[in-house]
Protein backbone atom coordinates (compact mmCIF):
# COMPACT_ATOMS: atom_id res chain seq x y z
CA UNK A 1 0.00 0.00 0.00
CA UNK A 2 1.38 3.38 -1.00
CA UNK A 3 2.40 5.57 1.85
CA UNK A 4 3.35 9.19 2.19
CA UNK A 5 6.21 11.11 3.75
CA UNK A 6 6.23 13.10 6.95
CA UNK A 7 9.00 15.29 8.21
CA UNK A 8 9.03 16.62 11.75
CA UNK A 9 10.70 19.81 12.95
CA UNK A 10 11.49 21.04 16.41
CA UNK A 11 10.10 24.50 15.69
CA UNK A 12 8.04 26.38 13.12
CA UNK A 13 10.96 28.54 11.94
CA UNK A 14 12.92 25.46 10.86
CA UNK A 15 9.80 24.05 9.21
CA UNK A 16 9.15 27.20 7.23
CA UNK A 17 12.76 27.58 6.13
CA UNK A 18 12.72 23.94 5.00
CA UNK A 19 9.58 24.57 2.97
CA UNK A 20 11.16 27.66 1.43
CA UNK A 21 14.21 25.63 0.44
CA UNK A 22 12.18 22.86 -1.24
CA UNK A 23 9.77 25.22 -2.95
CA UNK A 24 12.55 27.39 -4.35
CA UNK A 25 12.50 25.34 -7.51
CA UNK A 26 9.66 27.03 -9.38
CA UNK A 27 6.49 24.98 -9.74
CA UNK A 28 7.60 21.81 -7.97
CA UNK A 29 5.72 22.14 -4.68
CA UNK A 30 2.38 23.49 -3.65
CA UNK A 31 1.47 24.17 -0.03
CA UNK A 32 -1.72 23.45 1.86
CA UNK A 33 -1.38 25.81 4.79
CA UNK A 34 -3.12 28.74 6.50
CA UNK A 35 -0.90 31.00 4.37
CA UNK A 36 -2.56 29.73 1.19
CA UNK A 37 -6.32 30.18 1.77
CA UNK A 38 -9.05 29.75 -0.82
CA UNK A 39 -10.03 32.98 -2.59
CA UNK A 40 -12.91 34.64 -0.79
CA UNK A 41 -14.32 36.35 -3.90
CA UNK A 42 -14.82 33.02 -5.69
CA UNK A 43 -17.15 30.21 -4.74
CA UNK A 44 -15.83 26.73 -4.01
CA UNK A 45 -16.13 25.27 -7.51
CA UNK A 46 -14.54 28.39 -9.04
CA UNK A 47 -11.65 28.14 -6.56
CA UNK A 48 -10.95 24.56 -7.59
CA UNK A 49 -11.58 25.04 -11.31
CA UNK A 50 -9.26 28.07 -11.39
CA UNK A 51 -6.15 25.86 -11.36
CA UNK A 52 -7.05 24.06 -14.59
CA UNK A 53 -8.35 27.22 -16.24
CA UNK A 54 -4.94 28.84 -15.73
CA UNK A 55 -2.52 25.96 -16.10
CA UNK A 56 -4.33 23.68 -18.55
CA UNK A 57 -6.21 26.50 -20.33
CA UNK A 58 -9.44 24.53 -19.93
CA UNK A 59 -12.65 26.36 -20.66
CA UNK A 60 -15.04 26.99 -17.79
CA UNK A 61 -17.33 24.02 -18.58
CA UNK A 62 -14.55 21.45 -18.60
CA UNK A 63 -12.71 22.80 -15.55
CA UNK A 64 -15.95 23.04 -13.58
CA UNK A 65 -16.90 19.47 -14.53
CA UNK A 66 -13.52 18.21 -13.31
CA UNK A 67 -13.81 20.20 -10.10
CA UNK A 68 -17.30 18.86 -9.47
CA UNK A 69 -16.07 15.32 -10.03
CA UNK A 70 -13.45 15.81 -7.28
CA UNK A 71 -16.02 17.34 -4.95
CA UNK A 72 -18.32 14.38 -5.52
CA UNK A 73 -15.53 11.98 -4.60
CA UNK A 74 -15.43 13.55 -1.16
CA UNK A 75 -19.19 14.02 -1.01
CA UNK A 76 -18.73 17.80 -0.86
CA UNK A 77 -20.74 18.66 -3.98
CA UNK A 78 -23.26 20.62 -1.87
CA UNK A 79 -20.55 23.17 -1.17
CA UNK A 80 -19.93 24.02 -4.83
CA UNK A 81 -21.80 27.33 -4.86
CA UNK A 82 -20.84 28.35 -1.33
CA UNK A 83 -18.14 30.85 -0.44
CA UNK A 84 -15.15 29.76 1.66
CA UNK A 85 -16.50 31.76 4.62
CA UNK A 86 -19.58 29.52 4.66
CA UNK A 87 -17.54 26.32 5.10
CA UNK A 88 -16.26 24.70 8.29
CA UNK A 89 -12.53 24.41 9.03
CA UNK A 90 -12.52 20.71 8.19
CA UNK A 91 -14.37 21.32 4.91
CA UNK A 92 -11.90 24.07 4.03
CA UNK A 93 -9.06 21.69 4.74
CA UNK A 94 -10.51 19.09 2.35
CA UNK A 95 -11.21 21.76 -0.26
CA UNK A 96 -7.64 23.06 -0.01
CA UNK A 97 -6.41 19.52 -0.62
CA UNK A 98 -8.69 19.16 -3.64
CA UNK A 99 -7.40 22.44 -5.05
CA UNK A 100 -3.81 21.33 -4.49
CA UNK A 101 -4.54 17.99 -6.17
CA UNK A 102 -5.60 19.84 -9.32
CA UNK A 103 -1.97 20.89 -9.79
CA UNK A 104 -0.40 18.11 -11.81
CA UNK A 105 3.13 16.81 -11.38
CA UNK A 106 3.85 18.76 -8.21
CA UNK A 107 4.43 17.65 -4.64
CA UNK A 108 1.60 18.61 -2.30
CA UNK A 109 3.07 19.89 0.95
CA UNK A 110 0.63 19.85 3.86
CA UNK A 111 1.98 22.15 6.54
CA UNK A 112 1.13 21.53 10.21
CA UNK A 113 -2.31 19.94 9.70
CA UNK A 114 -2.78 19.52 13.44
CA UNK A 115 -2.08 23.17 14.14
CA UNK A 116 -4.32 24.32 11.32
CA UNK A 117 -7.32 22.15 11.97
CA UNK A 118 -7.57 21.34 15.61
CA UNK A 119 -10.05 18.53 15.69
CA UNK A 120 -10.13 15.10 17.26
CA UNK A 121 -10.10 13.33 13.92
CA UNK A 122 -8.22 15.79 11.70
CA UNK A 123 -5.38 13.33 11.02
CA UNK A 124 -7.72 10.50 10.02
CA UNK A 125 -9.58 12.99 7.88
CA UNK A 126 -6.41 14.15 6.17
CA UNK A 127 -5.35 10.62 5.28
CA UNK A 128 -8.82 9.64 4.17
CA UNK A 129 -8.91 12.62 1.81
CA UNK A 130 -5.42 11.90 0.47
CA UNK A 131 -6.47 8.29 -0.17
CA UNK A 132 -9.67 9.22 -1.97
CA UNK A 133 -7.93 11.83 -4.10
CA UNK A 134 -5.18 9.33 -4.80
CA UNK A 135 -2.39 11.80 -4.16
CA UNK A 136 -0.66 10.06 -1.24
CA UNK A 137 2.44 9.29 -3.23
CA UNK A 138 3.03 12.91 -4.09
CA UNK A 139 2.21 14.33 -0.67
CA UNK A 140 4.57 15.35 2.08
CA UNK A 141 3.40 16.46 5.51
CA UNK A 142 5.55 18.90 7.46
CA UNK A 143 4.73 19.00 11.14
CA UNK A 144 6.18 19.79 14.53
CA UNK A 145 7.94 17.11 16.61
CA UNK A 146 5.57 17.64 19.49
CA UNK A 147 2.81 16.06 17.38
CA UNK A 148 4.87 13.00 16.41
CA UNK A 149 3.10 10.83 18.96
CA UNK A 150 -0.31 11.82 17.60
CA UNK A 151 0.64 10.24 14.28
CA UNK A 152 1.91 7.11 16.02
CA UNK A 153 -1.17 6.87 18.26
CA UNK A 154 -3.46 6.91 15.25
CA UNK A 155 -1.48 4.02 13.72
CA UNK A 156 -0.98 5.89 10.45
CA UNK A 157 1.37 4.26 7.97
CA UNK A 158 3.89 6.78 6.76
CA UNK A 159 7.58 7.30 6.07
CA UNK A 160 9.15 9.57 8.62
CA UNK A 161 11.95 11.50 6.96
CA UNK A 162 14.80 12.24 9.34
Amino acid at each position, binding site marked *: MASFNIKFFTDIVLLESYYKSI*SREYGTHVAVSP*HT*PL*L*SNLNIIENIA*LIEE*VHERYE*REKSHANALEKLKKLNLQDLQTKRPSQCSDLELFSLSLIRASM*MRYVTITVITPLVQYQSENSLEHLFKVLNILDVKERTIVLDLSLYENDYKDKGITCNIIR
Partner: protein
Amino acid sequence: MTRVFEYLGEITLNFLSDVYEALRFSYLCITHLFLPNSYHPAMKSILIKQIYFTVIQILPSFLLLGFFFGSLIIGYVITLAINYELSNQIGSIIIGFVFNEFAPLFTAFLIALRSGAAVNTEIAVMQVSGELNALKEFNIGLIDYLFLPRIISGVISVVTLSLIFAMIMLVGGYLFSLLYMNMSLNTYMYTLFSSIEIENLLYLVGKSMAFGFVIMLIPIYSGLRTIKAFNAIPIAVLKGMVRLFIAIFIIEVLSLWLRLI
Protein backbone atom coordinates in the same frame (compact mmCIF):
# COMPACT_ATOMS: atom_id res chain seq x y z
CA MET B 1 21.70 70.78 10.35
CA THR B 2 23.15 67.46 9.19
CA ARG B 3 20.03 65.71 10.45
CA VAL B 4 17.81 67.96 8.36
CA PHE B 5 19.78 67.07 5.23
CA GLU B 6 19.73 63.39 6.16
CA TYR B 7 15.98 63.58 6.65
CA LEU B 8 15.44 65.40 3.35
CA GLY B 9 17.75 62.95 1.59
CA GLU B 10 15.85 59.99 3.01
CA ILE B 11 12.50 61.44 1.92
CA THR B 12 13.84 62.14 -1.58
CA LEU B 13 15.35 58.66 -1.93
CA ASN B 14 12.14 57.02 -0.70
CA PHE B 15 10.09 59.12 -3.11
CA LEU B 16 12.35 58.29 -6.06
CA SER B 17 12.33 54.62 -5.13
CA ASP B 18 8.50 54.68 -4.94
CA VAL B 19 8.26 56.38 -8.33
CA TYR B 20 10.68 53.87 -9.84
CA GLU B 21 8.71 50.93 -8.41
CA ALA B 22 5.40 52.39 -9.62
CA LEU B 23 6.80 52.94 -13.13
CA ARG B 24 8.25 49.44 -13.19
CA PHE B 25 4.89 48.01 -12.17
CA SER B 26 3.11 50.06 -14.85
CA TYR B 27 5.61 48.84 -17.44
CA LEU B 28 5.01 45.20 -16.42
CA CYS B 29 1.23 45.63 -16.65
CA ILE B 30 1.45 47.31 -20.06
CA THR B 31 3.77 44.55 -21.34
CA HIS B 32 1.37 41.84 -20.18
CA LEU B 33 -1.49 43.62 -21.95
CA PHE B 34 0.13 42.69 -25.27
CA LEU B 35 1.04 39.09 -24.43
CA PRO B 36 -1.44 36.58 -25.87
CA ASN B 37 -0.60 34.15 -23.02
CA SER B 38 -2.09 36.57 -20.52
CA TYR B 39 -5.58 35.91 -21.84
CA HIS B 40 -6.44 32.52 -20.29
CA PRO B 41 -10.06 31.43 -19.62
CA ALA B 42 -9.94 32.45 -15.94
CA MET B 43 -8.70 35.90 -16.88
CA LYS B 44 -11.45 36.29 -19.50
CA SER B 45 -14.07 35.25 -16.97
CA ILE B 46 -12.82 37.87 -14.45
CA LEU B 47 -12.70 40.46 -17.23
CA ILE B 48 -16.38 39.87 -18.07
CA LYS B 49 -17.30 40.16 -14.38
CA GLN B 50 -15.28 43.35 -14.01
CA ILE B 51 -16.87 44.93 -17.08
CA TYR B 52 -20.26 44.08 -15.60
CA PHE B 53 -19.33 45.66 -12.26
CA THR B 54 -17.74 48.81 -13.67
CA VAL B 55 -19.95 49.52 -16.70
CA ILE B 56 -23.30 47.70 -16.60
CA GLN B 57 -24.04 47.78 -12.88
CA ILE B 58 -23.35 51.51 -12.59
CA LEU B 59 -25.30 52.44 -15.75
CA PRO B 60 -28.80 53.28 -14.32
CA SER B 61 -27.48 55.59 -11.58
CA PHE B 62 -24.89 57.01 -13.97
CA LEU B 63 -27.55 57.85 -16.57
CA LEU B 64 -29.72 59.51 -13.96
CA LEU B 65 -26.86 61.47 -12.43
CA GLY B 66 -25.51 62.34 -15.87
CA PHE B 67 -28.86 63.62 -17.04
CA PHE B 68 -29.54 65.90 -14.08
CA PHE B 69 -25.99 67.05 -13.40
CA GLY B 70 -24.85 67.17 -17.02
CA SER B 71 -27.95 69.05 -18.17
CA LEU B 72 -27.55 71.66 -15.44
CA ILE B 73 -23.88 72.22 -16.21
CA ILE B 74 -24.40 72.46 -19.96
CA GLY B 75 -27.39 74.75 -19.34
CA TYR B 76 -25.18 77.04 -17.30
CA VAL B 77 -22.50 77.05 -20.03
CA ILE B 78 -25.10 77.91 -22.69
CA THR B 79 -26.54 80.69 -20.54
CA LEU B 80 -23.05 82.14 -20.01
CA ALA B 81 -22.31 81.95 -23.74
CA ILE B 82 -25.53 83.83 -24.49
CA ASN B 83 -24.81 86.44 -21.79
CA TYR B 84 -21.36 87.06 -23.28
CA GLU B 85 -22.85 87.24 -26.78
CA LEU B 86 -21.15 84.11 -28.00
CA SER B 87 -24.30 82.54 -29.46
CA ASN B 88 -22.65 82.14 -32.87
CA GLN B 89 -19.95 79.96 -31.30
CA ILE B 90 -22.29 77.89 -29.18
CA GLY B 91 -21.51 74.67 -31.12
CA SER B 92 -17.77 74.78 -30.57
CA ILE B 93 -18.23 75.85 -26.95
CA ILE B 94 -20.53 72.89 -26.22
CA ILE B 95 -18.37 70.38 -28.07
CA GLY B 96 -15.12 71.68 -26.55
CA PHE B 97 -16.54 71.76 -23.04
CA VAL B 98 -18.32 68.41 -23.21
CA PHE B 99 -15.86 66.27 -25.20
CA ASN B 100 -12.54 67.75 -24.17
CA GLU B 101 -13.11 68.51 -20.54
CA PHE B 102 -16.20 67.70 -18.62
CA ALA B 103 -17.34 64.24 -19.75
CA PRO B 104 -13.98 62.44 -19.25
CA LEU B 105 -13.17 64.23 -15.98
CA PHE B 106 -16.60 63.72 -14.43
CA THR B 107 -16.62 60.03 -15.42
CA ALA B 108 -13.09 59.58 -14.10
CA PHE B 109 -14.05 60.99 -10.71
CA LEU B 110 -17.14 58.81 -10.53
CA ILE B 111 -15.32 55.59 -11.47
CA ALA B 112 -12.41 56.47 -9.17
CA LEU B 113 -14.75 56.93 -6.22
CA ARG B 114 -16.69 53.77 -6.93
CA SER B 115 -14.42 51.18 -8.56
CA GLY B 116 -11.01 52.62 -7.63
CA ALA B 117 -11.80 52.52 -3.93
CA ALA B 118 -13.32 49.02 -4.26
CA VAL B 119 -10.30 47.63 -6.12
CA ASN B 120 -7.88 49.20 -3.64
CA THR B 121 -9.72 47.58 -0.72
CA GLU B 122 -10.08 44.25 -2.51
CA ILE B 123 -6.36 43.94 -3.28
CA ALA B 124 -5.38 45.14 0.20
CA VAL B 125 -7.69 42.56 1.82
CA MET B 126 -6.32 39.82 -0.45
CA GLN B 127 -2.79 40.84 0.51
CA VAL B 128 -3.50 40.80 4.25
CA SER B 129 -5.53 37.57 4.21
CA GLY B 130 -2.80 35.73 2.28
CA GLU B 131 -4.91 35.18 -0.87
CA LEU B 132 -2.28 36.85 -3.06
CA ASN B 133 0.27 34.51 -1.52
CA ALA B 134 -2.01 31.56 -2.36
CA LEU B 135 -2.17 32.66 -5.99
CA LYS B 136 1.63 32.94 -6.16
CA GLU B 137 1.95 29.52 -4.51
CA PHE B 138 -0.20 28.01 -7.25
CA ASN B 139 1.84 29.78 -9.94
CA ILE B 140 -1.10 31.93 -10.96
CA GLY B 141 0.30 35.20 -12.29
CA LEU B 142 -1.15 38.12 -10.33
CA ILE B 143 -0.79 40.50 -13.27
CA ASP B 144 -2.60 38.23 -15.73
CA TYR B 145 -5.29 36.90 -13.41
CA LEU B 146 -6.00 39.83 -11.10
CA PHE B 147 -4.65 43.08 -12.46
CA LEU B 148 -5.16 42.98 -16.24
CA PRO B 149 -8.93 42.34 -16.09
CA ARG B 150 -9.33 45.28 -13.73
CA ILE B 151 -7.13 47.58 -15.81
CA ILE B 152 -8.84 46.63 -19.09
CA SER B 153 -12.30 47.03 -17.55
CA GLY B 154 -11.23 50.40 -16.11
CA VAL B 155 -10.16 51.63 -19.54
CA ILE B 156 -13.32 50.27 -21.22
CA SER B 157 -15.61 51.69 -18.55
CA VAL B 158 -14.18 55.23 -18.52
CA VAL B 159 -14.15 55.42 -22.35
CA THR B 160 -17.69 54.03 -22.70
CA LEU B 161 -19.21 56.02 -19.87
CA SER B 162 -17.48 59.23 -21.01
CA LEU B 163 -19.04 58.83 -24.45
CA ILE B 164 -22.45 58.11 -22.90
CA PHE B 165 -22.08 61.09 -20.58
CA ALA B 166 -21.14 63.33 -23.51
CA MET B 167 -24.28 62.20 -25.36
CA ILE B 168 -26.45 62.90 -22.32
CA MET B 169 -24.94 66.36 -21.97
CA LEU B 170 -25.60 67.08 -25.64
CA VAL B 171 -29.26 66.07 -25.16
CA GLY B 172 -29.40 68.35 -22.10
CA GLY B 173 -27.78 71.07 -24.16
CA TYR B 174 -30.59 70.79 -26.72
CA LEU B 175 -33.25 71.28 -24.04
CA PHE B 176 -31.55 74.46 -22.85
CA SER B 177 -30.97 75.71 -26.40
CA LEU B 178 -34.67 75.20 -27.07
CA LEU B 179 -35.61 76.99 -23.87
CA TYR B 180 -33.22 79.93 -24.03
CA MET B 181 -32.56 80.37 -27.75
CA ASN B 182 -35.66 78.77 -29.18
CA MET B 183 -33.32 76.66 -31.32
CA SER B 184 -34.90 73.87 -33.36
CA LEU B 185 -33.53 70.32 -33.24
CA ASN B 186 -32.27 70.56 -36.83
CA THR B 187 -30.39 73.80 -36.16
CA TYR B 188 -28.95 72.38 -32.94
CA MET B 189 -27.79 69.21 -34.71
CA TYR B 190 -26.31 71.26 -37.55
CA THR B 191 -24.50 73.55 -35.07
CA LEU B 192 -23.02 70.53 -33.28
CA PHE B 193 -22.06 68.57 -36.40
CA SER B 194 -20.40 71.62 -37.97
CA SER B 195 -18.34 72.12 -34.81
CA ILE B 196 -17.35 68.54 -34.04
CA GLU B 197 -14.07 67.25 -35.37
CA ILE B 198 -12.43 63.85 -35.25
CA GLU B 199 -9.84 65.42 -32.93
CA ASN B 200 -12.52 65.98 -30.29
CA LEU B 201 -13.46 62.30 -30.31
CA LEU B 202 -9.84 61.16 -30.29
CA TYR B 203 -9.10 63.54 -27.46
CA LEU B 204 -12.00 62.20 -25.40
CA VAL B 205 -11.03 58.58 -26.05
CA GLY B 206 -7.31 59.17 -25.36
CA LYS B 207 -7.91 61.09 -22.18
CA SER B 208 -10.48 58.59 -20.94
CA MET B 209 -8.07 55.72 -21.62
CA ALA B 210 -5.39 57.44 -19.55
CA PHE B 211 -7.87 58.06 -16.75
CA GLY B 212 -9.15 54.47 -16.87
CA PHE B 213 -5.62 53.10 -16.72
CA VAL B 214 -4.58 55.06 -13.62
CA ILE B 215 -7.95 54.60 -11.91
CA MET B 216 -7.22 50.88 -11.70
CA LEU B 217 -3.43 50.81 -11.66
CA ILE B 218 -2.87 53.10 -8.67
CA PRO B 219 -5.38 51.38 -6.35
CA ILE B 220 -3.95 47.97 -7.34
CA TYR B 221 -0.41 49.14 -6.65
CA SER B 222 -1.43 50.70 -3.36
CA GLY B 223 -3.28 47.53 -2.29
CA LEU B 224 -0.24 45.42 -3.14
CA ARG B 225 1.97 47.48 -0.86
CA THR B 226 -0.25 46.98 2.18
CA ILE B 227 1.62 45.53 5.14
CA LYS B 228 0.12 42.31 6.52
CA ALA B 229 -2.15 43.73 9.21
CA PHE B 230 -5.88 44.35 9.00
CA ASN B 231 -5.56 47.86 10.43
CA ALA B 232 -3.26 48.72 7.50
CA ILE B 233 -6.13 48.34 5.01
CA PRO B 234 -7.80 51.77 5.60
CA ILE B 235 -4.38 53.45 5.44
CA ALA B 236 -3.62 51.72 2.14
CA VAL B 237 -7.00 52.77 0.71
CA LEU B 238 -6.53 56.34 1.90
CA LYS B 239 -3.03 56.59 0.41
CA GLY B 240 -4.18 54.97 -2.82
CA MET B 241 -7.12 57.33 -3.26
CA VAL B 242 -5.01 60.43 -2.56
CA ARG B 243 -2.41 59.26 -5.11
CA LEU B 244 -5.19 58.49 -7.57
CA PHE B 245 -6.72 61.96 -7.32
CA ILE B 246 -3.29 63.55 -7.73
CA ALA B 247 -2.75 61.40 -10.85
CA ILE B 248 -6.16 62.43 -12.26
CA PHE B 249 -5.27 66.10 -11.78
CA ILE B 250 -1.86 65.59 -13.38
CA ILE B 251 -3.48 63.98 -16.44
CA GLU B 252 -6.01 66.82 -16.61
CA VAL B 253 -3.26 69.46 -16.42
CA LEU B 254 -1.13 67.63 -19.01
CA SER B 255 -4.09 67.34 -21.37
CA LEU B 256 -4.82 71.07 -21.03
CA TRP B 257 -1.15 71.81 -21.65
CA LEU B 258 -1.17 69.54 -24.73
CA ARG B 259 -4.12 71.47 -26.13
CA LEU B 260 -2.39 74.77 -25.59
CA ILE B 261 0.82 73.87 -27.42
